[in-house]
C-alpha cells in the first residue's frame, strides 16, 4: 500500500491538547442557555424540529378538513372555520414547513458536507430560526382565537381588502408571513455565502456535492422570488391600513396586480421546495447504489435550468383571468419546457440505480426515494396536462388541481424529507431509526397518500370545486371523498409511527456508528461539535470513496486547520470558484443579542398587526438595539495576525473589501433589495398600463416643477461624494479622524434630505397617496427609498460610533464598507426612481 502521508498538509503527529481546545471553543451551552447556541449542529436540529412540528400541526388541520368532507352535507365544521383551516393549512405547509425545513437541512447539512466548522454567519442563522419559531407559532395560534385569515394561502384581492375581509385576520397573514419571509431571506444569504466561500480547499464548484448545488440554486431563487411577495404584502397591508388603492379598480388599481406579485413568487416557490429535495435524492441514490451519480453535469444543468425557467411560469396560475392568447402561449410553452430539466434528473436517478447492477440497497431511505420517483412523476405528468391552456380552463379551481399539486409537493418534498430523516439521522444524532418500523411508515404513507389523492383527480374531473366546506349528496362525489378521507388517515398513521419511532430512538443512548450507508461525501467523516478535526483537501466528488484513509487522516489532524489557532471559533474561507484558501474567518459564539433581536422583531410585527403602535415601536427600538449590540463584536480586526493552516500556507485572520464574506453578504442583500425594487417598477408600469387615465398630468395633479427632482438628485449625488470621501479619509490603525465621521453624517443627512424633498414635492403639488393608484405608487416609491435611507442612517451612525470608539480605521473597516456599498446602491435606486416618477409620466402622458 502506498504511503500517502507526505501528500498531507500536516503530515507530522499533532500536539496533544488540540482536540480539547476545539471542544472548549465549540462547546454547546448547557441548560437553559442552550437557546443562545449558534452552532449549526444545534440550531439546525431546532430548526428542523420546529419545521416538523408545523408539518404535524398543519397535518392535523388536513385531517380535520378531510373529516368534514368525508360525507356530504356534513356540519362537523362551520363554513367560516373551514375557510380559516384551509388557509392556515396551506400557509403553514408552504411558509412554515416546506421552506423552513429545506433551509434547516441546509443549515444542518451544508457545513458537514463542506467540512466547514460552521456557516459564515451563525448568529444570522440563529436569528432567522428564532424569528421564524416565534412568528410561526403566533401565526398558527390564530386558528384557536377565530383570528385566522380566510382568504386561502394566496390571499387574493379583492377578497382580502378591508371591505371584504374586515378585522385583523388578514393582517396576521400579511405581517406574519411577510416577517417570516424576511427570516427566509436571512437564511438564504447565509446559504449563498456559505456555499460559495466556506468550501474545503480544493473543492471547486464542479466538485461540489449536488445538495450544495441545489441549495445554492434554492437560495438564489429566494433572493429573486421572495421580494415580489414581500412587496405584495407591503402594498396590501398599506391598502388595508391606510387606504392607498393599489388593488382597488375604482381608483385605478387592479386586483390582478396582487396575483402577478404573488405568483411571481408562488410558482418558483414550488421549485424552491423541490430542488433541495431533489438534491437530497441525488445524495441518497449514489450511496445506496454504491456508485457515483450518473450525469453529474446534467444534474447541475437541470438544477440551474429549472431555477431559471421556473420564473417564466407564474402566469399559468392566471390562465383564466383574461389574458391575451399569445401571453398564454408563452407561459404554456415555458410550463412545458420546465419539464425537460426535471425529466433529466429523474432519468439520471434511474440510470444510477440501473448502473449499480443490482447493488442498489432497498432500505427505508431507498423506499422513500422510490416512492418519491413514482409520486412526483405522476404529479409532473398532470403538471404538463394543466400547462395546456384548454385543459387548465376545464380543471381550474377543481380538485384535479388539488390532486396535482399534492402529488408534486408531497411527492417532491415530503417523501425525500422522510428519506432524509432516515438517511442522515445517524450523522445528526449518532442514532439509527428502526428499519422495520421504517418500512411500515413508508408503506402506510405511500398507500395512504395515493388512496387520499389519486381519487381527487376524478373528483375534480367530475366538477367538485376546491375550497368548498361541504357538498350536496348524490352528485357523484360521495364515495370518492370518503375514500380520500380514509387515505388521509392511513397516511397520518404512517406519520404517527414515525414520530413514535423517532422518540424511541432519541431516548436510546447514542452509538458510535460512523458512515452506516458507506457514502462517499464529507458529512460522513468523523465529526463532533467543531465539525471535523481538520478540514480535508478535496480532489474529487466522492472523497471518501476515492481516498479510503481520509477519515483517519482528518481525525488525526493531518489536513488543514487541525486546531483553533486564534482561540476562537473559526473556519477557512476559500475562493468562490476554485476553493483556494484565502483567509480565516473568526465567527461569533453563543449570545443573547441575536435571540432578543429575533423575539422583539417578531413582537414588533405582531403588535403592529393588532394596532398596538406604541408597544410595537418600543419593541422595534429594542430589536434595533439588540441588533447593534450583536453586530458590535463582528468586526474583530486583524489583531491575531496570520496563522499556519498546513502545507506551509499562512492565512490572515481578517479580511475587508470585496474578498470578505461580509461584503459578499451585503452584495447578496443588495440583489434582494434590487429585486424588491424591480417588483415595484413592474407594479408601477403595470398599473399605468391598466389605468393610464389616473396618471399625471391628466388624471392627477400636475407633476412637481423640475427643480424638485433636480434638487433631490443633487442631494443624492452630494451624499454619494461624501461617503466616497469618507472612505478615503479613514485614519490609520490606532488613530482617529474628525473629518471622516463628519462626512459620514453629511452623507446620511443628504440621503434623508433627498427622500424628504421627494415626498414634499408631491405633497405640495396636491397629490395624496389615497387619491388613486398613481398617487399610491408615487408615495410607495418614497416609502421604499425611506426604508433604505433609515437602514443606512442606522448603519452610518454605527460606523460613526465605531470610529469614536477607535474600532474603525483604514484596515479594520468592514462596518464602513458595508454601509458604503449599500449607500452606492441606494443612490442608484433613488436616481432611477426620480427618472421613473418624474420622467415617465412626462414622456408617456
Amino acid at each position, binding site marked *: 500500500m502506498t504511503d500517502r502521508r*507526505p*501528500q*498531507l*498538509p500536516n*503530515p507530522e503527529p499533532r500536539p496533544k491538547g488540540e482536540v480539547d481546545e476545539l471542544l472548549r471553543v465549540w462547546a454547546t451551552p448547557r441548560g437553559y442557555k442552550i437557546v443562545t447556541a449558534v452552532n449549526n449542529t444545534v440550531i439546525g436540529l431546532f430548526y428542523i424540529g420546529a419545521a416538523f412540528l408545523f408539518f404535524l400541526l398543519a397535518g392535523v388541520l388536513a385531517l380535520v378538513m378531510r373529516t368534514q368532507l368525508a360525507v356530504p352535507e356534513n356540519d362537523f365544521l362551520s363554513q367560516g372555520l373551514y375557510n380559516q383551516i384551509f388557509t392556515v393549512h396551506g400557509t403553514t405547509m408552504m411558509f412554515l414547513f416546506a421552506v423552513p425545513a429545506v433551509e434547516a437541512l441546509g443549515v444542518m447539512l451544508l457545513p458537514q458536507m463542506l467540512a466547514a466548522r460552521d456557516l459564515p454567519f451563525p448568529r444570522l442563522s440563529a436569528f432567522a430560526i428564532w424569528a421564524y419559531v416565534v412568528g410561526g407559532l403566533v401565526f398558527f395560534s390564530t386558528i384557536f382565537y377565530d383570528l385566522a385569515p380566510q382568504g386561502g394561502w394566496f390571499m387574493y384581492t379583492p377578497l382580502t381588502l378591508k371591505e371584504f375581509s374586515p378585522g385583523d385576520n388578514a393582517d396576521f397573514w400579511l405581517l406574519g408571513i411577510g416577517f417570516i419571509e424576511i427570516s427566509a431571506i436571512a437564511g438564504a444569504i447565509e446559504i449563498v455565502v456559505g456555499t460559495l466561500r466556506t468550501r474545503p*480547499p*480544493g473543492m*471547486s*464548484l*464542479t466538485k461540489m456535492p449536488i445538495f450544495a448545488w441545489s441549495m445554492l440554486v434554492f437560495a438564489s431563487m429566494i433572493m429573486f422570488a421572495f421580494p415580489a411577495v414581500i412587496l405584495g404584502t407591503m402594498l396590501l397591508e398599506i391598502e388595508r391600513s391606510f387606504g392607498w388603492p393599489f388593488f382597488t379598480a375604482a381608483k385605478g388599481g387592479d386586483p390582478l396586480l396582487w396575483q402577478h406579485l404573488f405568483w411571481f413568487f408562488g410558482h418558483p416557490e414550488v421549485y424552491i421546495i423541490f430542488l433541495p429535495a431533489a438534491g437530497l435524492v441525488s445524495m441518497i441514490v449514489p450511496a445506496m447504489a454504491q456508485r457515483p451519480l450518473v450525469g*453529474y*453535469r*446534467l444534474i*447541475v*444543468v437541470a438544477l*440551474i*435550468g429549472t*431555477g*431559471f*425557467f421556473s*420564473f*417564466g411560469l407564474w402566469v399559468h396560475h392566471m*390562465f*383564466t383571468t*383574461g*389574458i*391575451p*392568447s*399569445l*401571453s*398564454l*402561449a*408563452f407561459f*404554456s*410553452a*415555458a410550463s*412545458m*419546457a420546465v419539464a*425537460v*430539466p426535471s425529466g433529466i434528473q429523474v432519468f439520471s436517478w434511474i440510470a444510477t440505480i440501473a448502473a449499480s447492477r443490482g447493488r442498489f440497497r432497498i432500505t427505508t431511505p431507498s423506499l422513500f426515494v422510490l416512492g418519491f420517483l413514482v409520486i412526483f412523476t405522476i404529479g409532473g405528468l398532470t403538471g404538463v396536462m394543466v400547462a395546456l*391552456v384548454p385543459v387548465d*380552463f376545464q380543471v381550474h379551481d377543481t380538485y384535479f388541481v388539488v390532486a396535482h399539486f399534492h402529488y408534486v409537493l408531497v411527492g417532491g418534498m415530503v417523501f425525500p424529507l422522510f428519506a432524509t430523516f432516515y438517511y442522515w439521522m445517524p450523522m445528526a444524532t449518532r442514532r439509527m431509526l428502526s428499519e422495520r418500523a421504517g418500512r411500515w411508515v413508508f408503506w402506510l404513507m405511500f398507500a395512504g397518500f395515493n388512496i387520499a389523492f389519486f381519487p381527487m383527480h376524478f373528483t375534480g374531473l367530475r366538477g367538485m370545486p376546491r375550497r368548498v366546506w361541504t357538498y350536496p349528496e348524490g352528485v357523484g362525489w360521495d364515495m370518492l371523498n370518503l375514500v380520500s378521507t380514509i387515505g388521509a388517515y392511513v397516511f397520518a398513521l404512517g406519520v404517527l409511527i414515525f414520530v413514535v419511532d423517532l422518540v424511541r430512538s432519541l431516548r436510546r443512548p447514542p452509538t458510535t456508528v460512523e458512515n452506516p450507508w458507506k457514502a462517499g461525501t464529507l458529512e460522513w467523516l468523523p465529526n463532533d461539535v467543531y465539525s471535523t478535526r481538520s478540514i480535508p*483537501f478535496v480532489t474529487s466528488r466522492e472523497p471518501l470513496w476515492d481516498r479510503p484513509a481520509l477519515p483517519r487522516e482528518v481525525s488525526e489532524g493531518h489536513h488543514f486547520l487541525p486546531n483553533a489557532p486564534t482561540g476562537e471559533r473559526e473556519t477557512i474561507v476559500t*475562493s*468562490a*470558484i*476554485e476553493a*483556494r*484558501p484565502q483567509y480565516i474567518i473568526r465567527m461569533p459564539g453563543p449570545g443573547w443579542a441575536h435571540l432578543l433581536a429575533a423575539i422583539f422583531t417578531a413582537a414588533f410585527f405582531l403588535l403592529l398587526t393588532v394596532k398596538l403602535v406604541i408597544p410595537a415601536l418600543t419593541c422595534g427600538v429594542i430589536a434595533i438595539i439588540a441588533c447593534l449590540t450583536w453586530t458590535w463584536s463582528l468586526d474583530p480586526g486583524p489583531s491575531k495576525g496570520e496563522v499556519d493552516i*498546513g*502545507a*506551509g*500556507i499562512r492565512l490572515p485572520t481578517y479580511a475587508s473589501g470585496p474578498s470578505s464574506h461580509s461584503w459578499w453578504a451585503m452584495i447578496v442583500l443588495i440583489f434582494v433589495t434590487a429585486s424588491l425594487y424591480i417588483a415595484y417598477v413592474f407594479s408601477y408600469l403595470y398599473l399605468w*398600463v*391598466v389605468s393610464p387615465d389616473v396618471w399625471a398630468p391628466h388624471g392627477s395633479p400636475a407633476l412637481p416643477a423640475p427643480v424638485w427632482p433636480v434638487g433631490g438628485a443633487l442631494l443624492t449625488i452630494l451624499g454619494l461624494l461624501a461617503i466616497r470621501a469618507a472612505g478615503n479619509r479613514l485614519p490609520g490603525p490606532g488613530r482617529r479622524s474628525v473629518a471622516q465621521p463628519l462626512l459620514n453624517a453629511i452623507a446620511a443627512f443628504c440621503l434623508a434630505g433627498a427622500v424628504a424633498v421627494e415626498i414634499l414635492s408631491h405633497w405640495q403639488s396636491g397629490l395624496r397617496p389615497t387619491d388613486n393608484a398613481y398617487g399610491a405608487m408615487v408615495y410607495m416609491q418614497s416609502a421604499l427609498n425611506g426604508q433604505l435611507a433609515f437602514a443606512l442612517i442606522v448603519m452610518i451612525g454605527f460606523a460613526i460610533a465605531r470610529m469614536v470608539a477607535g474600532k474603525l480605521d483604514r484596515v479594520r473597516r468592514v462596518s464602513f464598507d458595508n454601509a458604503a456599498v449599500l449607500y452606492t446602491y441606494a443612490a442608484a435606486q433613488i436616481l432611477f426612481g426620480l427618472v421613473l416618477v418624474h420622467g415617465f409620466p412626462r414622456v408617456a402622458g
Partner: protein
Amino acid sequence: MPKRNTFFPPAPKPSTTGTLVYMLFGPLVWAVQFTLAYGGHTLVCARGGAPWISDVVVLAATALTAVLLVCFLVWQERCAGAFGQPAPPRRDRPTDGIARILAFLSLVAVFWGGATVGLLDACVLGR
C-alpha cells in the same frame, strides 16, 4: 513539510463573476428574450397597438437572442476567454460542459417560446 504548490500549483485564476456569467449565459439570454417578448407584446396589446407590431416584437426578441446563443455555442472557446476563463489545459472542463448544455437548453426554450407567434392572434383575449 509539504509546500503550498503541492496542493495549489500556481496557475491563472478564473474570474469569479466571469465564471458565473459564462456558466449562466444561456439562461440569462433566455430571461432577456422572455422579458422582451412578454413585456413588449403585453404593452403593445394593452396600449391598443396593431397585433402585427406585437408579432414583430416577439420575433425580433427571439431572433436576436437565438443568434446570441448560436454564436456562443459556435465560438465557445473565444467566449470562455472573454469571460475570464483560463486557456486549456487549465480550464475546468465540467464548467465548459455545463455552460454548453445550458446554452443549448436555453436555445430550445427560446425557439419554443418564440414559435407561438405564428400560431395565435397576438391581442385576442384567451378567454
